[in-house]
């Protein structure tokens, strides 16, 4: 019996992604009674998504990443496998208008916005022009494409500090803060190189960098009939290298009046664009002002905190909207309960500047408990390689209030066992117990301004003895050396010195 699936104009959904988000989307596809397929490169063998899908579509490429970016191959194989809809997840092809268009041309449903909407809003520059044109606030900025020859001069005219961004980018990649405009040309060159390699588009734009800003974003849902609602905001100010590390809903830094203004602005932008799908409108909030930053026309990594406080399944909403159903609720029917926190588990070494880490997952055991959800992209035994981004899993915790959610999240992190590959778990725990974080005094430079949070903490003599004792007993050479010494001498305890 498929009580829900029976209403869908498609019965087989292919997930064109990998890692935790592929597993997340598959979970809902299956819960709705639809048949689930997932693409996968050989590098992802043994991952949770590959294990849970009803069917697998193997893809190949010159690199693993190239396979997941190969729109033509994915569409051809999706058709062969009987897919009628494609969910793109986030990253990879999720904001590629051409991919969406080709899926529709092939007679399948793209679980996302209309291709023209992706072009309008997915391009940061046209999205900013669109928002400004409809009266929403944007930061002082210079766009390279408007006049490439004068780009650097126009940046200098605005004055520092400036933030350089790829026009076709996202996820913080290729972004640079330039405080010393004497280094501008050099920074532009590096940003252009990264933009070209990551996004196939070297064009840049620059905007005034707000010092110690907050990053607030608003979840919206729009259906095919022009109806748009917001699902409140997410606080995403805790970042390293422009990438979010911890997200919350609601934001503790907004007053109720500010919350209403920012959520209404987000819904207004989406409504003006006749936006269809789940989407996220991002803002920079500094002092009393907020500026439109960009709109992400896809599911967001941190969507589970919104699910936790609203009780909605955003992937189910995306699929219903793609199926042509009208929204099942009005703005006033959407309520929020309690507070939710997400902590991103990254394969990286915080003590070495958050540089990526690799290794085999020798033990992997996520926490469980009241209000605890873990979206994992990896399984025990899997190799973590440098081929993909470092997100291993997301811990999402819901509590009655912010304090309870933060403390529950910190405790859950203590129970999170990941052995064999360095992660940021210890760092996240210190971050969630930082006095400024507990007080809600968040801004995007907080992590960079507190290097002690990232450093390996000094060990107490008791802990050091326990850790070295366990290690010494586990290393054969060390044990053999102990056994080689006659016990009488060893018992004296001081002959070695």
């Amino acid at each position, binding site marked *: 019996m498929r009580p829900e699936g029976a209403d869908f104009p498609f019965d087989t959904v292919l997930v064109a992604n990998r890692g935790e988000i592929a597993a997340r989307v598959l979970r809902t596809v299956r819960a709705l009674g639809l048949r689930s397929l997932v693409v996968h490169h050989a590098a992802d063998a043994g991952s949770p998504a590959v294990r849970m899908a009803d069917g697998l579509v193997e893809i190949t490429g010159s690199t693993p990443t190239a396979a997941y970016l190969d729109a033509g191959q994915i569409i051809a194989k999706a058709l062969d496998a009987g897919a009628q809809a494609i969910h793109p997840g986030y990253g990879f092809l999720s904001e590629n208008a051409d991919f969406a268009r080709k899926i529709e041309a092939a007679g399948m449903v793209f679980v996302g916005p209309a291709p023209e909407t992706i072009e309008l809003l997915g391009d940061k520059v046209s999205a900013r022009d669109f928002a400004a044109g409809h009266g929403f606030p944007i930061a002082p900025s210079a766009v390279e494409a408007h006049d490439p020859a004068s780009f650097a001069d126009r940046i200098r005219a605005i004055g520092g500090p400036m933030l350089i961004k790829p026009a076709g980018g996202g996820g913080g990649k290729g972004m640079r803060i330039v405080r010393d405009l004497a280094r501008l040309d050099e920074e532009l060159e*590096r940003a252009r*190189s*990264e933009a070209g*390699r*990551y996004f196939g588009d070297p064009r840049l734009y620059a905007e005034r960098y707000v010092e110690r800003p907050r990053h607030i974003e608003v979840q919206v849902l729009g259906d095919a009939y022009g109806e748009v609602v917001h699902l409140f905001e997410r606080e995403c100010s805790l970042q390293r290298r422009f990438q979010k590390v911890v997200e919350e809903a609601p934001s503790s830094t907004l007053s109720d009046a500010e919350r209403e203004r920012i959520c209404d602005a987000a819904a207004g932008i989406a409504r003006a664009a006749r936006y269809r799908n789940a989407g996220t409108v991002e803002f920079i909030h500094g002092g009393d002002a907020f500026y439109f930053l960009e709109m992400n026309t896809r599911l967001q990594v941190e969507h589970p905190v919104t699910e936790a406080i609203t009780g909605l399944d955003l992937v189910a909403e995306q699929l219903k909207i793609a199926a042509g159903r009208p929204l099942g609720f009005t703005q006033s029917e959407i309520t929020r309960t309690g507070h939710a926190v997400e902590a991103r588990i990254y394969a990286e070494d915080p*003590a*070495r*500047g958050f*540089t*990526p*880490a*690799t290794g*085999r997952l*020798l*033990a992997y*055991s996520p926490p469980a408990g009241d209000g605890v959800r873990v979206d994992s992209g990896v399984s025990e035994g899997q190799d973590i390689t*440098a*081929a*993909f*981004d*470092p997100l291993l899993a997301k811990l999402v915790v819901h509590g009655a209030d912010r304090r309870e959610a933060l403390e529950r999240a910190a405790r859950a992190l*203590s*129970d999170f*066992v*990941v*052995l*064999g590959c*360095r*992660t940021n778990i*210890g760092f996240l*725990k210190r971050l969630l117990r930082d006095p400024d974080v507990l007080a809600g005094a968040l801004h995007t430079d907080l992590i960079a301004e507190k290097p002690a949070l990232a450093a*390996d903490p000094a060990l107490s*003599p*008791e*802990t*050091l*003895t*326990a*850790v*070295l*004792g*366990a*290690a*010494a*007993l*586990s*290393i054969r*050479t*060390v*044990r053999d*050396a*102990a*056994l080689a*010494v006659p*016990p009488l001498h*060893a*018992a004296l*305890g*001081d002959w*070695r010195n």
Partner: protein
Amino acid sequence: MRHLFLIGEAEHRAWLTRRGDGFALDLDGVLTTVSIESAAGSRVRLRVGEATHDVVLVTDGDHVHLHLDGEIYQVTYRDPVSRYAEAAAQGLGDLAKAPMPGSVVAVRVSAGDVVIPGQALVVIESMKLEMAINAERAGVVEGVHVAVGETFERDATLVTLAPDKEG
């Protein structure tokens, strides 16, 4: 004589010795009895003096990974031979090493080039993060040990500078 262990960047010296039927750890002259009994799979019971800890422990060659009292530790046993060989190899700034595993995006120098401090030698990438590896001192490039597209592990030597004659 002491065994050398690394936890993060910190080096620790300790010795394991027999104590009755079991073992004791000697850390800075303080002896503490230690024992491990396995529970299920990688879950073990660690006794340290009077204290008992439920630990998840996995050994991988010279690396011991453990989850102890809510924290994760990675301990590396350094055997003396490789350690002294490395220490004797070259002085500070002669080796440009990889701070992370990854692949080579660009090689900016070749053998014989004169470089200044801060000059980019190679550009590497890992998990979509691009990073320039710069010269730590002025000198002459002795060898470039990687090519564009090549992958490497953390701490791999990417570029060597000729020994500084004044140093």
